[in-house]
């Protein structure tokens, strides 16, 4: 089966950021994403807003260029002040065009 190399970007963040991150992902060229709730603790010792919820994990499959843009954007706007973890993984998908936006 023919597959296309893509990037999976995973972002684990405070729940208050979900709407904002969802908006950013679309703006930066992701065609879609999925969100799941999670629990955990990190280097900041707490998840800042424990009252509205635990934390969220956003995943999106994007091209290498878009993945770079997303990670740069997160580093610039979120890493300093918020509990946000992001990483990328190499994956292969069957329908490459589904995840690729026009440059």
């Amino acid at each position: 089966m023919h597959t296309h190399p893509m990037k999976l970007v995973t972002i684990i963040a405070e729940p208050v950021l979900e709407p904002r991150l969802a908006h950013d992902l679309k703006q930066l060229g992701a065609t879609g994403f999925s969100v799941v709730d999670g629990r955990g603790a990190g280097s900041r010792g707490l998840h800042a807003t424990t009252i509205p919820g635990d934390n969220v994990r956003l995943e999106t499959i994007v091209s290498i260029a878009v993945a770079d843009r997303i990670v740069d954007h997160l580093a610039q706007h979120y890493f300093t002040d918020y509990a946000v973890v992001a990483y990328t993984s190499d994956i292969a998908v069957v329908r490459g065009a589904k995840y690729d936006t026009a440059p």
Partner: protein
Amino acid sequence: MPLLDTLQANLLSPIPLAFALGVLARLMKSEFALPKDLYASLSIYLLLALGLKGGYELSHASVASIAWPAAATLALGVLTPLTTYGAMRWLGRFSTSDAAGMAAHYGSVSAVTFIAAQQFTQRVGAPAEGFMPTLLTLLESPGIHIALAIGALNRGPTRQHGDAPHSTGSTWAVLHEVFTGRTMVLLVGGLFVGYLMGESGWKAVSPFFDSGFKGALMLFLLEMGIVAGSRLGDLRTVGPFLLGLGVLLPIVHGAIGATLATWAGLSVGGATVLATMAASASYIAAPPAVRLTLPDANPTYSLTASLAITFPFNILFGIPLYYRIAQAVATAQV
């Protein structure tokens, strides 16, 4: 009744006992907690019931009787964030953002503390005016907006994100966040529905919304005890200044609230409830708004102070104290 007796009577009533049980469960490291969805459902039930009953009561209140209390409430909404900001900034030497974040919490109001005060005044035979939930909605948001405005103005433009493709902390986003929060929608919505449906409507739904209210409140307070209990460990990290402030601010705000409320013509019960509102700190509406607008404010300070210090203080000791202050102010005025 002497203050000590009032305190004791309060401590042995359902709300503080349920709260204490929750704290105890957490201290014993019990795995017990209310399921998250039940907690959310209970808060929806309580807020809507509060709004409906308040709206129904409002339908037979005169504009004249509510005008001055409403003005007093708005004055408290402006004053409490300013005193909190001043105390944090100049006495505690906290950063602008931390001070403004704290001011947003203490400028807003805790609906559960409000309900606890309402129940207390009923129990001691001095029930508050029926329109009090209307005042609760008035106090919910001004404090948050004032505090966030102070924070945004004093922080200066250095942390603005320029041409970022998102709306970081934009005024509109924060306004939307505060005005469409669960508390505002259910309370304000409930007030309108309760007002429009009048007495016959209220009678039809009161078996559900009135009879179950106190029981639901106990369950909710049990969970609040667990939440507050799990933050007790943070008391060590916030330091003695915030510990003291978490107790002093509610007393000062409560005393000012009781005085303004009495001047505005509220009964002793009403003044107790308004004083408690001024003394309480928000831990539901304020945290996300602060987090999005002032990201460099440390949420441990404001959440621990409002949830692990001020909330228990008000539930256990504050409300009877404000009742005594309201009584004293009313006597002095006569």
